[in-house]
């Protein structure tokens, strides 16, 4: 037993090294477009990781709901069917009041805290960015299934899940965190698609073990001095 602990310890060291590579590559990619010289005003409105802990207060409740036996109907295919490509803002699959008194409040009633919606037999998905309240800026309803002209658009493949550096090690985050920095909104809670639901929502510091790696831009995946 003692021996396998040593081995696990060794793996964690390796993972840390791997993590270093991944994180460095991400920042190098971002610096491609560096516009820092002009960023003299108050800080940007979208720090990439600001939302990680936002729903953490609900984590225990999520655990309870997992165990309550109530099931939503969201699976991973349903999840992606609402997005033109992985990372695109999802469309609104239900009728929506186009002209609410207060758009943010109206949408957040359900998408802020979640909960079961009997009419749709589903749990309301949680927004990862509750501070952005001009909701219809990015999310639009679906009024028709037709198209104006035929399209050859093919939805790109979703990122591969379960990608690990080592067998048994924590999987990497296969997508970027922009607008999606609150992990629990998609991976925790009863509205999360079963395939990507996290088994341990109570361990809220996700980025402690899971590192972002989109698998993008091959040229930047190796760190050099």
């Amino acid at each position: 037993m003692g021996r396998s602990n040593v081995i696990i310890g060794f793996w964690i060291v390796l993972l840390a090294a791997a993590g270093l590579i991944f994180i460095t590559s991400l920042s190098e990619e971002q610096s491609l477009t560096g516009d820092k010289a002009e960023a003299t005003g108050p800080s940007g409105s979208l720090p990439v990781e600001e939302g990680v802990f936002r729903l953490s207060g609900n984590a225990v409740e999520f655990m309870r709901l997992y165990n309550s036996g109530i099931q939503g109907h969201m699976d991973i295919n349903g999840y992606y069917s609402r997005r033109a490509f992985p990372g695109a803002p999802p469309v609104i699959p239900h009728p929506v009041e186009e002209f609410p008194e207060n758009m943010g409040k109206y949408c957040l009633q359900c998408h802020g805290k979640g909960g079961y919606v009997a009419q749709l037999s589903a749990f309301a998905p949680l927004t990862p960015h509750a501070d952005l309240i001009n909701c219809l800026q990015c999310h639009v309803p679906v009024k028709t299934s037709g198209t104006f002209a035929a399209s050859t658009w093919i939805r790109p493949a979703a990122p591969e899940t379960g990608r690990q550096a080592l067998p048994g090690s924590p999987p990497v985050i296969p997508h970027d965190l922009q607008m999606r920095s609150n992990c629990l909104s998609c991976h925790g809670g009863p509205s999360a698609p079963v395939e990507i639901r996290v088994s341990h929502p109570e361990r809220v510091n996700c980025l402690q073990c899971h590192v972002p790696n989109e698998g993008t831009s091959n040229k930047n995946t190796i760190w050099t001095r």
Partner: protein
Amino acid sequence: MPVKSYIAFPRVGMKEQLIEVLKKTPHCEVMPALNKDVLVLVTDTADDQEEEALRQILYGIKELAHLNLVSGYSDKINQTDEKSSEHDNE
């Protein structure tokens, strides 16, 4: 079906020769570092007999100075792990 990866260090000045030898060795995949005298070796054998045979071959390669096991995997969970650690820092 054991899969293992090693860090392989060639004898001084023999990196290219070592790459050539390993390329010809069955069950081996070699990934040389571009800027250092070191290479990564991944082996993939069908069973323990084959694994043992490969180990004998590897030990016999004269261009190889040092072989350092990094990770191992087998369907028989943890067995190869237990074994592999014996070869650590041989």
